[in-house]
């Protein structure tokens, strides 16, 4: 028997809740990677910036779609910060500090979201 739209919506909402829990777990790992990439930037490896941007972009899109609006906005802000940096050169100390502050804000927001379950 085919499911009704209501049954499909209930199943979709249940699956969204599972995906949200998985997103939180993945984001904890992604923020660790961002911190590692930040350390690489501090050591002069400019290529780490693209990885931070990729992780922030994914966190922004997926997070907000799954209902984590504040986290998504912080992540979009991190992406925008990177996009505003001059291309082709390693970010200076001031830019790296701003990036570190953004990542810190993401960590705080993620901790709040994880507590709320």
């Amino acid at each position, binding site marked *: 028997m085919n499911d009704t*739209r209501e049954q*499909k919506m209930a199943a*979709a909402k249940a699956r*969204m809740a599972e*995906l949200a829990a998985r997103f939180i777990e993945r984001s904890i790992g992604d923020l660790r990677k961002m911190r590692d990439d930040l350390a690489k930037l501090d050591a002069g490896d400019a290529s780490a910036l693209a990885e931070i941007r990729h992780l922030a972009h994914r966190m922004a899109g*997926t997070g907000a779609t799954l209902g984590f609006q504040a986290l998504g906005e912080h992540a979009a802000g991190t992406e925008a910060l990177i996009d505003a940096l001059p291309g082709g050169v390693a970010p200076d100390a001031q830019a790296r500090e701003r990036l570190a502050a953004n990542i810190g804000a993401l960590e705080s927001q993620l901790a709040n979201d994880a507590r709320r379950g």
Partner: protein
Amino acid sequence: MKTPALKNVLYVDDDADIREIVQMSLSLDGEMAVHLSDGGERALVKMRDERPDLVMLDVMMPGMDGPSILARMRADAELKHIPVIFMTAKANSSEVARFRGMSAIGVIAKPFDPMALGGQVKALWKSHHE
């Protein structure tokens, strides 16, 4: 002009979670078959295999981005007629105009409401055929 039924959609995105959410969203009414691809050349192969009525492309993907896939489609005799909708986090007016200038029939902003996405897609499909 009568709007043809939208039965077969291909959604292309490098993010597996978003692919699953889009597939669930578009399947709620039971009217559409939703195929998925994670991008690149695989997306073009999938289009040839599935012959979708509509392709939905994420804009920002590693390797070949959404606009590059659309350019490849428009240069391909088998795929050039397939309507395309872009999905993007940067759906400001200048970007929307740019994508429409590339022949996209519409742009849907990310993040999206999973429960409303099907309606948005159908509305763009209908207006494309009016």
